[in-house]
């Protein structure tokens, strides 16, 4: 299959003249674009925070709407006790959203079309779930895994552990499959009928898919965190 022309990777190759950085960039373009997304997000938030005023300007207005919207949404689901989870959830949401949408720019590839990127996000969420559980319940957190009847506990424990591993798998594979599938459909349509604007509707669909998948990842993280916070029953 024809490789797309990735600007940033070519730029790194031109700068380093075929050195170590060029080989790494060519082998792992997704990591390169992950860093591009991170730099863009950090710069945006830096410029938004640099000039905070009582009467917000354009940039600050947008950021305030986004941030307060996300915060209200989280609290609407978890209640007031979930407010301290806002930083990690909003970070995951904005980062994955930016990763999904950057693929629509020509010469860029979505980092989430690689299983490593999505698996790293999913592992952060799943591990943090257990940290929350231990923080809220201490040793009693084990009750979440044992079920209601004591003599069924060994069976329930195995099932629960499989369920928690499957959470990481389903979170990562869902995002990866959606983004990679979208990329493949685009590539195939470009090969078949690229000259007749055939991929255009699929690219429009890509905006929708990117937003919905980022939202699904975000809301499932909220659900998992909330499940760890509430009492075992």
């Amino acid at each position, binding site marked *: 299959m024809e490789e797309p022309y990735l600007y940033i990777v070519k730029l790194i190759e031109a700068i380093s003249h075929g050195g170590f950085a060029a080989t790494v960039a060519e082998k792992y373009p997704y990591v390169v674009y992950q860093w591009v997304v991170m730099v863009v997000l950090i710069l945006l938030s830096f410029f938004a925070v640099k000039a905070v005023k009582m009467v917000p300007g354009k940039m600050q207005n947008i950021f305030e709407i986004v941030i307060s919207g996300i915060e209200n949404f989280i609290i609407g689901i978890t209640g007031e006790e979930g407010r301290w989870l806002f930083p990690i959830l909003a970070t995951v949401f904005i980062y994955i959203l930016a990763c999904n949408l950057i693929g629509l720019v020509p010469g860029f590839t979505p980092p989430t079309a690689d299983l490593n990127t999505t698996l790293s996000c999913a592992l952060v969420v799943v591990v943090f779930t257990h940290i929350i559980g231990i923080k809220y319940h201490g040793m009693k957190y084990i009750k979440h895994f044992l079920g209601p009847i004591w003599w069924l506990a060994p069976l329930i424990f195995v099932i629960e552990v499989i369920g928690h591993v499957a959470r990481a798998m*389903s979170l990562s*594979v*869902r995002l*990866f*499959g*959606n983004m*990679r*599938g979208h990329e*493949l459909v685009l590539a195939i349509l470009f090969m078949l009928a690229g000259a007749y604007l055939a991929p255009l509707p699929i690219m429009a669909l890509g905006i929708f898919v990117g937003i*919905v*998948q980022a*939202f*699904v990842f975000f*809301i499932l993280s909220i659900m998992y965190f909330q499940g760890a916070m509430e009492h075992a029953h």
Partner: protein
Amino acid sequence: MNAISFFVASVCAAGFAIGIAAFGCGLGQGNGLKAAVEGIARNPEASGKITTTLIIGLALIESLCIYALVVALIIIYATPYASTIAALLGH
């Protein structure tokens, strides 16, 4: 020759996998959508909440189809014969 017949079987299997998965997912998503539209028609004020829940549910159902897609991709691209096939096809 062995590799070619293996490749043919893989492509058939991948096509059937996606077809069957899309069949089931279509039925499931259609049921969910039907119930959501009925709910909105009866109580239009609840449309915001219903839409959010619906989209999450649809995404969860759709992920099953996506799993089939990933398995199909693995069947085609990540088999032990993949490098042999690529050499045969002249890449």
